């Protein structure tokens, strides 16, 4: 008989505890982010697709060494460059020097596995992960990024 009543009382007590928890939750702030209207700030270590990094003049830091292309296990990076002659003042005399300038940097994001080997292998800190995650399309071509073009658009 005692067990019967103690079971009832313990049951009622546990119900009251449960209702207390939901009562407290009711007055706590809502945690939902209404996605298209509000977005969360992505964390610093979020790894989106890669993006070219610019120097202080707004030009790509990339020297077109091609290490990233070689490091990529999926072969999704393709880049091209050309040699440009430029003049520098050195010890009072004008010298003509050559350097490689990036003319094309394409990322085929459809095959990219986001391993980050390209960023690891870049000795110049010229590529980095973007924070872009709103990637959805019905066309494959939308994931063939021209990163030089994106850099220009970012600066304009």
């Amino acid at each position, binding site marked *: 008989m005692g067990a019967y009543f103690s079971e*009832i009382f313990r049951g009622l007590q546990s*119900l009251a505890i*449960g*209702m207390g*928890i*939901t*009562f407290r*939750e*009711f007055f*706590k*702030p*809502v*945690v*939902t982010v*209404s996605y298209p209207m509000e977005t969360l700030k992505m964390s610093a270590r979020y790894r989106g697709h890669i993006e070219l990094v610019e120097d202080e003049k707004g030009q790509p830091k990339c020297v077109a060494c091609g290490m990233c292309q070689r490091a990529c296990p999926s072969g999704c990076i393709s880049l091209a460059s050309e040699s440009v002659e430029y003049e520098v003042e050195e010890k009072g005399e004008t010298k003509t020097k050559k350097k490689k300038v990036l003319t094309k940097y394409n990322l085929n994001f459809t095959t990219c596995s986001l391993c980050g080997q390209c960023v690891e292998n870049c000795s110049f800190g010229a590529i980095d992960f973007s924070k872009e995650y709103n990637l959805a399309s019905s066309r494959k071509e939308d994931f063939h990024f021209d990163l030089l073009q994106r850099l220009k658009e970012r600066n304009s």
Partner: protein
Amino acid sequence: MSLTVLNAIIAVVIAIGFAALNAAYLVWAERRGAGRIQRRPGPNVNGPLGLLQPLADGAKLMTKQLMIPGGADKALFMVAPVLAMAPAIMSFVTIPFSDVIVAKSMDVGVLMIFAFASLGSMSILFAGWSSRNKYGVMASVRAVSQAISYEVPMLITVITIVMMTGSMNLHDLAVSQAGGFWHWNIIPSLASPLMPVSFLIFFICSLAETNRAPFDLGEAESELVAGFHTEYGSMGFGLFFMGEYANIVIGASLITILFLGGWGCPFGLFPSVFWFLLKIYLLIATFIWIRWTFPRTTIYGLLNLSWKILIPISLFNLLLTAGLLKVF
């Protein structure tokens, strides 16, 4: 047309309007409350605070096609949703909202409400049986066994109260508790020291009678798809829904009249319809709160609770009250 018939028609129209409005906005309140308890906003897109959501829901339900599954018992299939809604509307007729706001004050008001409430489980049985769906049949069997087992303690509790008051008229029941909360039936008195327990039993039974969580075994989604209304779409489903919420309002009104002093103010001042509405909506808020707190019980747990706990205790309370009424 005589004046009394006209009165009756007006009363029924008001009752339907009140039930429909309540159903629409209780769904909204339910979803908002569920959202807050789970720390999400709930419906908030349509209109300010999502207040136009019931209209959108209604438009969606009414424009959907009414499907009747092949092999279904057509007549019963069509009657069931109406039968879910009609008794709920009928019960509103005899519920006194205040001293003067009552459609028809009846000397057997309590009896009438419980008679119509038991028709509600008929609609569930019809719906499950006629839709020729195994889930529907199982759900209706469960719902009926649940209704039978919970009507017993509920009615025993009501007998206790009727014994104390000496009337089955809901108006008289409320008037007998007038003047301050210390006169309410929920407060234990010399003749009935177990009244809070009775209140708890009646509260649990009205949760079960209205098929609310945690006793919503008739529509247990995880095991029975959608239970007895699996095959219903469109406004057929809408009527079941409205009937359920109308039943909730009636359950809350009954608890208010039987235990919480009806339209009386807790401090004996200004008894009016506002107190009644305040009490029923507080009770409904508690129903919603309970629904989103507790998980669904099993069918065995449900029946054990009724036959092993609620019925013995309410019977004991009935005998105790009967004895003490003789003494005092």
